[in-house]
């Protein structure tokens, strides 16, 4: 939105240069100053549907009516066009201040707003877009000609619902701790909402990243806040890191794809009450020796072990030890089409 703000600001600055901004930003009177502008420049297209002389029904353009307070505030097909007090969020202001040759410029027919009219309009929106006593047309906003209502309510993903419960009573972590972890190569994302840092996803992104004592110490500072950790293709001291992870009470997902581990410390994760997904895909060092440790992870709903060195027998053993867990091994990939050449030949 800062781009819009910048534009509105820049436009304001231009007028200031042109000497158009009055010394005091007086609040325009809607009926006396603003309404005549709307009547002159907007109502021709943005009023109630009517039948013209040729018998054709003329619907309001873009589903937008400006001929009544209720219609004005409701907006058009694309949603509200006016946000009282905020110029840069008011599409109606944006449209009338575009370059005149822009396809989105308004009014699309007839003459554009004069500098004086623009200034009145700007002051009106900036001052809160009061309508005074004016009601204008009060008929119920028509459904026809406008876009259909949004399909149902967008569901909250089940993962987020779990996190909401886990985050209850948790305070926002100090920013300095997040900064520290980020400086050590971690990518830190909130998992609940953009502004909500109570629960975090921590990833160490680049290939073969080593996670050492510094990173583990920084993670310890955020112990209560880590819900997901992505350690794919990293290298670390398994005992040290897993001991720290075991102290993270809200840890739900651990991604260890192709990490350099042998699985000897996996049993440490058994203390994690909410651990739901453990991904060991491609951990070549993990063998049947890890089965005992993995068998203690009863909270898991998913455990990925494809391309580890766990045997078929080991897989069966895991499945019987963890009856509530979906233990995911090798998929049955489709057989190549008959007559298929090797992909290497081309």
């Amino acid at each position, binding site marked *: 939105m*800062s781009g819009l703000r910048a534009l509105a600001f820049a436009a304001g600055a231009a007028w200031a240069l042109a000497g158009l901004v009055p010394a005091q930003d007086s609040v325009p009177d809607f009926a006396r100053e603003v309404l005549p502008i709307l009547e002159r420049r907007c109502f021709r297209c943005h009023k109630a549907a009517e039948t013209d002389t040729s018998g054709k029904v003329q619907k309001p353009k873009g589903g937008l009516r400006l001929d009544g307070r209720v219609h004005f505030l409701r907006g058009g097909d694309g949603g509200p066009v006016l946000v009282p007090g905020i110029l840069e969020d008011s599409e109606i202001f944006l449209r009338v201040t575009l370059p005149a040759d822009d396809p989105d410029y308004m009014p699309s027919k007839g003459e554009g707003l004069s500098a004086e009219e623009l200034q009145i309009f700007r002051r009106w929106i900036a001052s809160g877009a009061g309508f005074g006593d004016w009601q204008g047309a009060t008929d119920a906003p028509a459904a026809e000609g406008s876009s259909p209502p949004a*399909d149902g309510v967008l569901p909250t993903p089940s993962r987020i619902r779990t996190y909401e419960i886990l985050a209850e009573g948790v305070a926002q972590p100090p920013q300095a701790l997040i900064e520290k972890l980020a*400086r050590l190569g971690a990518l830190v994302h909130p998992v609940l909402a953009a502004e909500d840092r109570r629960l975090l996803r921590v990833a160490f992104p680049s290939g073969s990243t080593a996670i050492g004592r510094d990173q583990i110490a920084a993670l310890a500072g955020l112990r209560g806040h880590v819900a997901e950790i992505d350690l794919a293709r990293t290298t670390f001291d398994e005992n040290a890191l897993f001991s720290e992870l075991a102290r993270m009470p809200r840890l739900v997902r651990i991604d260890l794809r192709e990490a350099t581990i042998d699985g000897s410390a996996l049993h440490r994760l058994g203390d994690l009450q909410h651990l739901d997904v453990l991904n060991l895909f491609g951990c070549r060092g993990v063998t049947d020796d890890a089965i005992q440790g993995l068998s203690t992870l009863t909270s898991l709903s998913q455990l990925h072990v494809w391309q580890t060195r766990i045997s078929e027998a080991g897989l069966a053993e895991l499945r019987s030890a963890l009856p509530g867990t979906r233990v995911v091994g090798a998929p*049955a990939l489709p057989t190549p089409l008959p007559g298929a050449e090797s992909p290497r030949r081309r």
Partner: protein
Amino acid sequence: MKRLAHSLDELDRRAFLRRSAAGLLGVGLAPDGLLPHPSRVGTARRVIYLYMSGGMSHLDTFDPKPGSEVMGPTEAIPTRADDVSIGAHFRNLAPLMDRVAVVSSMSSNQGAHVQGRYFMHTSYTMRGTIRHPTLGAWLSQLAGADNPTLPPHVAVGGDVYGASGGFLESRHYPLPIGNPSDGLRNAHLPATVSEERFHQRMDRLAAMNAAFEERYGGQKLVRSYAEAYDQAVELMRSDDLTAFDLEAEPEPIRAAYGQGRFGQGVLLARRLCERGVRFVEVTDGGWDTHVENFDAMDEKLPSLDQTLATLLLDLEARGMLEDTLVVLATEFGRTPEIVSGRNGRNHHPKAFSCLLAGGGIRGGQRYGQTDERGEEVVDRKVTVPDFNATIAHALGLDVEKVHQSPTGRPFQVADKGRPIAELFA
């Protein structure tokens, strides 16, 4: 040179816009250590976007009308999902349809290829005055990279048709990969250039550019050019470069994806997504079946079936299907009428089918419906912007938010499209 000179006139305004935009538009790491983040937390972190270029027949694939004369020789088979039957060629996909949502009420108003592709990719119709960004470019701009050393947006195979960054900066444009089996070309130093010598060259380049950059470094084009160098050098040094190398993949998996360019391209997409690339588009051509439609289906569908089924199973076993959105899209469908004499189907934008799977999508459903001939949408029409808004919503992008082009015009990620709630789990 002309373009550069033109934009130099705009120096002050651009510099001003850039400074004020830097914090909020996902440019660089935020000072508080948290990454630039889309405005909501989405259900998917990344997209594998499979584009069937030319207009994929909906009747012969995902919206068959068994018993109708419009089907020609194409038959339908039941699937794992109760209400979803699909073309008989999809024998590997049929048992996986509980993971897939078929959107069979797609409708576009663009009946020509170039315009249709552009609309599908950008949610806006083509116009002379501006180039709109594709979803991949928006994602790159608004959510940033999941892996700082790899480009966030890659396009594999064929022409990059609509896939462009439009008015966004060039670093949001997709990295084009022509032949997936070639990987990323020219990414290694020639044998005759040592690391040290390479350093000297780069230092000399920096020294020669310094004065110019100091003066004009705020310029979008100047900055983009310098950034392209920095990114390339970083990528050359990255361990993640191996993501581009299909030779590193076990042979049985390479074979399961299918031997053609498309299958190998989809495999490359999976490898890149594993390493944190956000949006990979893979294009497959040959769907413009005006002539001998059914021969083309016999040839193309078994391999699409093979590749798509392998992708879904492979992602699932790697634990990646939950947060990887797989999209199958095309610019329009094909006519119910079979053109006599040449056994073809013509363009049909009024009704066609696309697929969504993984990434928080509720599989096992058919959304929307066409009439008994597959000619008109009769239930829950989905416009192209609605479809893209659904993808954007899955990625956590705010579809209501208005963004500004450099010339100050308002745009939304999927125009005025609205996400479809029923498609989410």
